[in-house]
């Protein structure tokens, strides 16, 4: 829940007030920390990442005036965490995050059309189309799992349902996405 209004935070950043960092931490610290932690799976790495997010926001605002701010900060956290993970050893890509990637692999199995390497843009458009047809709960599930890389148990706790139900629903959503990709001609 936002505790300081987005426009106030952006105002503080434009004024180059150091209170802006405190305000971002208060309003979005938990979300940003979780986004980074889900991918890095290491508290210290995640904490460093969070600090880098505040720095990146400080450097980019102004001139940017992102709306909504929460999504902007979480996006920076996700990008920084993925970059950090890539720059470290393969062993570092462990446990939960590897599982998220494995699950996503199901959507594009070995039947991928290698002659026409998929462009990120095409995939993204297909995912947007897929998400727009889902109801709120399914969108929440998909985005929390595959954008924020949330563990299944955290999603279950947030939604107040059992983990099994979340896993089953995610399985159905992956199947649905795969069908969507086939329908769009992105899979052979």
């Amino acid at each position: 829940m936002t505790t300081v209004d987005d426009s106030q935070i952006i105002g503080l950043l434009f004024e180059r007030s150091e209170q802006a960092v405190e305000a971002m931490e208060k309003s979005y610290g938990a979300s940003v920390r979780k986004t980074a932690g889900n991918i890095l799976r290491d508290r210290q790495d995640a904490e460093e990442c969070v600090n880098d997010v505040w720095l990146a926001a400080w450097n980019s605002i102004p001139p940017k005036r992102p709306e909504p701010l929460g999504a902007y900060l979480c996006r920076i956290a996700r990008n920084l965490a993925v970059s950090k993970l890539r720059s470290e050893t393969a062993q570092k890509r462990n446990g939960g995050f590897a599982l998220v990637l494995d699950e996503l692999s199901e959507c594009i199995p070995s039947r991928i059309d290698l002659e026409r390497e998929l462009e990120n843009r095409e995939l993204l458009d297909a995912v947007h189309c897929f998400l727009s047809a889902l109801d709120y709960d399914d969108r929440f599930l998909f985005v929390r799992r595959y954008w924020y890389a949330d563990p299944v148990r955290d999603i279950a706790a947030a939604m107040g349902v059992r983990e099994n139900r979340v896993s089953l629903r995610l399985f159905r959503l992956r199947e649905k996405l795969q069908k969507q990709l086939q329908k769009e001609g992105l899979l052979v």
Partner: protein
Amino acid sequence: MNGEKVFQAITDLEDRYVEEAICYAPGNAAGAPGRTVHMKKKRIISLALAAALLLALGAVSYAANAAISTPEAAEKVALEQLEVWKEMGLISQEITFSGPATEIYELEEEQGDSYWYNRLFPHNYQTQWYGEGVGKYSGEMRVDTRSGKVLYAAICAQSDVGMEDIIPGDLTVDRFCGLLAEYWGFSGYRIADTTDKFYGDFPAIDGSVLMKDVASVAPLNYYLTVFFEGDQEGAPMYICLNDFEDSVRLSFGDGHTVG
């Protein structure tokens, strides 16, 4: 790797989707009103049907079935059952959910027994202790409103903990299954291989293995499949043990509907 490709591709997911999922708030969702109307209609029809059936079946029958008819009663029963398990030696003595349940809701898809007219009443209750401020232990318990027993439970201990924070150190798999059979009123049990699309594949474990050591057999988690003698149509029941980096978790009753 294809998974990475998809993950990378959706990095630029539109802000509205990212923002919408920052926290779970179904009431704020765009497009929800249409669906709500539909659900309301459905609920009104269900309620009308239920009311008619209730009258037809008689208030006496309903009263007999609805011994646990409020969320408060369900929470009370759940906490009492937790104490019963401690006395039996099924779980660690120090387990406690501090504070009131964070959420209690009816499980509308669950039925009291196999007779179709009892599938409407009563519904079981899910009692949960999750979120900030619940303390060391979090979890959930599903209360059967007919028997007053808990059909499913998940107990999690967090931060600097080991398996013995949720399971007695000397409890074997055999003893644990035997105690569960006793609690639910079954005449015996059989430990089997786990071969399930969603739970995964795990070999049947030796009954003499200590419960606290089970999770170490498989990385992060282990599913134990048990068939209870007298259980409905031989449905398997799953027991799960997780040994995460900063928490441990035990759940039992997965896949087990009525018993």
